[in-house]
C-alpha cells in the first residue's frame, strides 16, 4: 500500500511539474518539484525513504524529459538520500540546516544536469548558467523545500501515520 501511495505521489508531482510549474515560476526560474519532493522525504522520513522516492520520481521525470533515462533518477535518488543522511547524521533538522543542505544539493544536481544537458560547457556558459539558473533555482528550491517540510511537519502526525512513515528523529 505504501509503495502504491509513493508511486501515486511521485506521478502527481511529475504531472504538476509538467503542467503547473509555470504558475510557480518566478522571473523564468522554475522550481524543481521532483527535487523538492525527494529532499523533503529525506529530511522528514530518513535516507531510505528519500532514496526510494527520489529514484521513483526521477524515473518518472526522465520519461518525460529529453535527456537520457537515468540522470534524473540518480540525481533525485542521491538528493533524497543525502538529505536524509546529512540532516540525520551531521545535523539536527533545523531551518538553516534544511536551507543549506537543500541549496547545496540543488546546486550539485544542477551542475551535473548542466554538464550532461549542454553539448559544450565553457566558462561563459557556466557563468551564465550559474547566474541565471543554478543559483536562483537553488535558492528557490531550498526555500520551497523548507516551506514544504515545515508544512508537512505542522500537519504531520496524522499524515505521517498514513503515509510518510516515521517523523524526524
Amino acid at each position, binding site marked *: 500500500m505504501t509503495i502504491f501511495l509513493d508511486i501515486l505521489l511521485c506521478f502527481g508531482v*511529475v504531472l504538476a*511539474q*509538467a*503542467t503547473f*510549474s*509555470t504558475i510557480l515560476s518566478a522571473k523564468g526560474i*522554475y522550481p*524543481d518539484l521532483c527535487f523538492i519532493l525527494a529532499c523533503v522525504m529525506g529530511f522528514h522520513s530518513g535516507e531510505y525513504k528519500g532514496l526510494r522516492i527520489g529514484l521513483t520520481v526521477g524515473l518518472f*521525470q526522465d*520519461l*518525460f*524529459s*529529453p*535527456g537520457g533515462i537515468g540522470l*534524473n533518477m540518480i540525481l533525485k535518488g542521491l538528493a533524497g538520500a543525502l538529505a536524509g543522511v546529512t540532516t540525520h547524521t551531521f545535523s539536527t533538522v533545523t531551518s538553516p540546516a534544511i536551507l543549506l543542505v537543500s541549496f547545496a544539493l540543488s546546486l550539485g544536481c*544542477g551542475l551535473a*544536469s*548542466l554538464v*550532461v*544537458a*549542454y*553539448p*559544450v560547457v565553457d566558462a561563459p*556558459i557556466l557563468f*551564465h*548558467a550559474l547566474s*541565471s*539558473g543554478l543559483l536562483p*533555482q537553488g535558492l528557490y528550491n531550498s526555500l520551497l523545500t523548507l516551506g514544504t517540510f515545515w508544512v508537512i511537519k505542522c500537519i504531520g502526525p496524522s499524515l505521517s501515520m498514513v503515509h510518510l512513515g516515521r517523523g524526524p528523529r
Partner: protein
Amino acid sequence: MPRSETNFPISTSIRRVLGVIFILFLALLLFLPRQSQEWLSHVGGPFARILEVPLHVVASIQDSIRHAWDHYIALQNVWEENQQLKQEVQRLQGEQNFLREHAIIAMQFQQLLAYQETTPMTTLPARIIGRNVSNWYRAIIINKGNQDGIHPEMGVITDAGVVGRVVRVNPTTAVVLLLSDPNVAITGMIQKSRDEGLVQGTPQGTIHMKYLPPLSPVQAGDPVVTSGLTDDFPRGLQIGRIQQVTKADTDLFQLGEIDPIVEFSKLEAVLVITSFQPDPPSSLPKPPVSPSP
C-alpha cells in the same frame, strides 16, 4: 342589604327610567334636524380630537411596521435575486471564457489543418500537454506518441514555421526539443543569398546561425528557411529572421542571431512531419541555354 344598593345609591326603578330616557335620546338623535347633529358634533369634536391622537399613533406604528415588513420581504427577495443573478453572471462568464478558449483552440487547429491540407508533407496534428519537466532542456510534451506513428528525429512545425524535433517517444506522448535548445541543430539557409549554415539554440535561449560564409551579404531582417539537407525538415520552411550578424577578426565564419518566427512560449498545437518528398534535383528549373555561336 341588596347588592345594587351597595354599588349604586340609585334605586332600580330610577335606573330603569334613566335607561329608557337614554334609549329615547338615542332614538331622538336619529330624528333630530341636521343643525342639531352638527351642534352635537361640535360638542363631541374635542373628544374626537383627543381620540385621534392614539388612533394616529397606532395607525402610524401599524404603517411603519407594514412598511418595514414589506421592505424587508422585498429586500430579502432582492438579495436572493441578486445572489442568483451574481451566480448566473459567474456561470455565464465561465461559459463564455470556456467557449472563447475553445474557439481560439479551434481557430488554431483550423489554421493548422488548413496548412496541413495545402502542404505536400504528411503531417500529424498534436496538442501540447506539458512543458519543461526538466529545467535543463527547453522542451514540450505533445499528446501523440508511437501508437500514432511518431518516431524520434521527426520534425515539428506550425503553420508559421519550425518548432523543433521529437527526441523521446512514449506510447501516447512524445517529448519535443525546441529549436531554442542547444541540443537541436538543423541546417538553414538565408532565403535571399542562398547561403547555408547551421541553426542551433544557445543556453541563453536565443537561436544562432553558425558557419555563414565570410563573404555572404547577409543582413539584419533577411529571412532564414530550412535548407532541406537534413532528413527531418523539407526545404523552405520558415525559421525566423536574422536579427544581427557578427564576425570577430579571428573568426572564419559569420554568426547570425535569429529572431524565431514561432513564439515558443505561446505554442498550443503543432504538426509533426511524418513524411515528405524531398525535392528531386531534376524538378529544379533548368537555366536557359544560350545558343552556341
